[in-house]
């Protein structure tokens, strides 16, 4: 009684445009996954395990990290890989569960938009970040220790 349509209601396979997104999506999930293991575990380890753990995280800590190109690249990679990985994974879910193609389209649009916006935002943050911004004097102590006195 479930009203599912016959499989592949269109007799010819749907994909006829050049790139096979399903295949590359599948490969991407695995490739990014492997890299993400390293990136995320490293990230978690540094942020939550070393020193005082989560307690130690503050502006100074983060700014300190972003002052080095190493961590910039690290986080940038993590940002891109994880968001695309996550968004593609969410797309799979929508394909599985969306009851109508229209709903699916809307949801996939939303996923794509949020991922795109956050990737742009994150990238901008990492590249335009100034570890020693001009701050009111009372907040000077929040800055990393290497900042020149203002």
């Amino acid at each position, binding site marked *: 009684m*479930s009203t599912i349509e016959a499989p*592949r209601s269109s007799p010819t396979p749907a994909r006829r445009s050049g790139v096979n997104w399903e*295949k590359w*999506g*599948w*490969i991407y999930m695995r490739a990014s996954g492997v890299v993400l293991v390293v990136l995320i575990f490293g990230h978690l380890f540094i942020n939550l395990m070393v020193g005082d753990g989560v307690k130690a995280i503050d502006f100074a800590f983060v700014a300190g990290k972003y002052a080095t190109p190493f961590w910039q690249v690290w986080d940038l990679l993590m940002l891109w890989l994880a968001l695309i990985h996550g968004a593609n994974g969410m797309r799979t879910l929508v394909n599985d569960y969306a009851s109508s193609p229209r709903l699916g389209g809307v949801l996939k649009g939303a996923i794509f938009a949020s991922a795109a916006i956050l990737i742009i935002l994150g990238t901008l943050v990492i590249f335009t970040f100034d570890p020693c911004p001009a701050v009111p004097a009372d907040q000077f102590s929040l800055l990393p220790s290497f900042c020149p006195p203002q």
Partner: protein
Amino acid sequence: MAAATQTLTAADAFTITLIIRRFLPDVDDEARWESFDVSVYSTDRILDALHKIKWEQDGTLSFRRSCAHGICGSDAMRINGRNRLACKTLIKDLDITQPIYVEAIKGLPLEKDLIVDMEPFFEAFRAVKPFLIANSTPEAGKERTQSVAQRAIFDDTTKCILCAACTTSCPVFWTDGQYFGPAAIVNAHRFIFDSRDDAADVRLDILNDKEGVWRCRTTFNCTEACPRGIEVTKAIAEVKQAVLRGKR
């Protein structure tokens, strides 16, 4: 003579409870559960119990069956939450202190009681070109040769009886009836890896699709459901690899 019968495991009959998901399209608006007590031997199969109900209690109970020994693929159904063939599920292998739940396989349109519309399933099967496509013509009156090793590569997937236990155990198929499903992939595998066949590329192309192999999320329900013991997920993995790297 021939009545060697149950003496082999001469056990006494006992009563079990079957709770069956009924749906009679002529009278019911939707499916409902109905409970039956039936007297069986421990060597009986669920199919025997269903027959006893149909023959002795309620003739309207409807299900498909033919061979009664797991070879024709008629009677895949969900028994205690898992897809099995009723004729291959022995009472003694189930926990009979609890009622046994029996319902139709999931994801295909329910027609009546344990009967579903199999057409979408066979449609997917037909779509993968499940037949030998060979470009060469063998010497008249001679077989194509094939080594024992070449034959062994696809032996597992030749065992399929198209019972649909796998496809209807697949979570991806339930939510999205468009997925080709494991059974179709198994049957494509059977030809993709047959050394006599020349159309592997065509089938790989068909399965390298939105609804093809990439939908499989390796949940292994299919492998566990297959009454023929086919390593379905493995076959799917091999097809995925073949799409990526070409056949072998």
